[in-house]
């Protein structure tokens, strides 16, 4: 099987921050590639700089050195072209559900009526009809994160950057939203980079998993996940699931078997 073309390639990115204890190197010569329609999870020890990678791709931070290429062209960042979703849903509390969904389209200066029509269509598709005029503080955590997902998807971003989007939710809601995400990604043909702490989630959703080393972060290994399951829940009952799970745990130096 021929591997699909590379959509985004990150080359030799270095980034350090100056702290109290002097310079702290967070990313050290980090390189990886993301294919067209890829679903890549990035896992690694806490504080290894996963969010920093996203901030650099999204154009919120500048790397000290290194380059990025998008479909073969050198780029500064993907600002305005990414859909960034974080652990906090970051809904604007003073905007209604509809207002929040419209945020990105407003920023682009798209005609109000057209944008609203599109927003209502998306809200309907995600089962949020009737909540258009509700304020975020009246919604449950799962609903809020669903609104955030719609806000991200409606902009038709080239790449979704998901930074532990479900980690603040309870397990059932998380499973449900993983399914919603997977379906949406299939429907809208999106490329996804997911940062997660949850190895289980990474295996159930991804085509590939990038394991990072501790700070300064480098790519330790890339695992291909070959589960043909249609949903994240059925993926978990695949016989190969636990094999991947344990392999990734081992990469992260987590003891999964008693050794005595």
């Amino acid at each position, binding site marked *: 099987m021929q591997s699909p073309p590379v959509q985004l390639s990150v080359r030799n990115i270095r980034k350090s921050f100056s702290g109290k204890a002097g310079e702290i190197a967070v990313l050290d010569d980090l390189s990886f590639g993301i294919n067209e329609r890829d679903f890549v999870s990035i896992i690694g020890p806490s504080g290894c700089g996963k969010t920093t990678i996203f901030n650099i791709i999204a154009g919120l931070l500048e790397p000290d050195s290194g380059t990025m290429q998008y479909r073969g062209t050198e780029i500064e960042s993907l*600002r305005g072209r990414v859909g960034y979703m974080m652990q906090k849903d970051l809904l604007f509390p003073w905007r209604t559900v509809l207002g929040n969904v419209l945020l990105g389209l407003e920023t682009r200066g798209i005609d109000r009526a057209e944008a609203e029509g599109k927003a209502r269509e998306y809200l309907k598709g995600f089962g949020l009809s009737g909540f258009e005029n509700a304020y975020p503080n009246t919604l449950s955590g799962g609903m809020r994160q669903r609104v955030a997902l719609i806000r991200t998807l409606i902009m038709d971003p080239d790449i979704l950057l998901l930074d532990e989007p479900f980690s603040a939710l309870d397990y059932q809601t998380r499973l449900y939203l993983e399914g919603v995400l997977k379906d949406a990604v299939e429907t809208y043909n999106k490329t996804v980079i997911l940062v997660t702490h949850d190895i289980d989630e990474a295996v159930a959703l991804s085509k590939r998993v990038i394991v990072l080393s501790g700070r300064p972060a480098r790519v330790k290994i890339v695992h291909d996940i070959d589960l043909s399951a249609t949903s994240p829940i059925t993926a978990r009952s695949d016989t190969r699931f636990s094999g991947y799970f344990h392999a990734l745990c081992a990469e992260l130096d987590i003891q999964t078997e008693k050794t005595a």
Partner: protein
Amino acid sequence: MPDATPLPKRKPRAARRRPHFNTPLGRATLQALAVVGFFALWELGVRMGWISAFLVGSPFGIFAVGYKMIASGELLSDTWFTLFEAILGFVIGTIVGSLMGLALWYSVFVARLVEPFIVAINSVPKIALAPIVVLWFGTGLVSKVALSVSLTAIVALIAAYQAAKDADVDLQSLLISMGADKHQVFFKAVVPSTLPSIIATFRINIGFGLVGAVVGEFISSQRGLGHLIYTASSLYDLNTVWVGLFTLMIMGFVLYYVIDMIERTSLPWKQSNTAHQVQV
């Protein structure tokens, strides 16, 4: 083993019921009784010769003067005059101050540059400016409004600037990742998130607006409640002084509730749920 915290014992239902007075009507009744009692004691004290009517006035005297001044239209005209000055000063001061405070968000350099000057201006008791303000702006309306503005603008400026600095960085980052420019970040994220703080200054500033108006009238004027109080007290006409003071009190009271209403209706997304109050 140390004693465990004793668990609250179940009280009989009757004992747990709230007292009858703790209802809106009950509270209003108690409040009215307190006011009536206060004036009755005052009047009694004056009649019995415990306190001097010459120095403190008397409720019946106040009532008589008040009635006469309402009938002549004098009180109403003074009230409107002072109210107009206060509200004009409040509105101008709040708008100018808030805009300046928000504008400082645009440039960290300018903000750091002017910060000590803002602190210095804020630390001057603005009332001390009153004589100069009268010199500059005359004895009419403008000097009172100017004094009110000097009091209210700085409060609004500091609140708006602080709130703009504290605006959620993640919301701003999200907008930037969507491709928003600085103006869009300002209008979509910064300004809305400062509104609660700016509106919270209304409560303090409406009071400062009144202070500016009244003090301005003390210094020099021909009209207004401040003028009324000042001239009456120099004539030892305490009843008239009290009429002015009570009118100011009522004015402040009404303005407070107007502001309260504005606060509640202008931020529908901030509706707090009073049902969540903890009962101790």
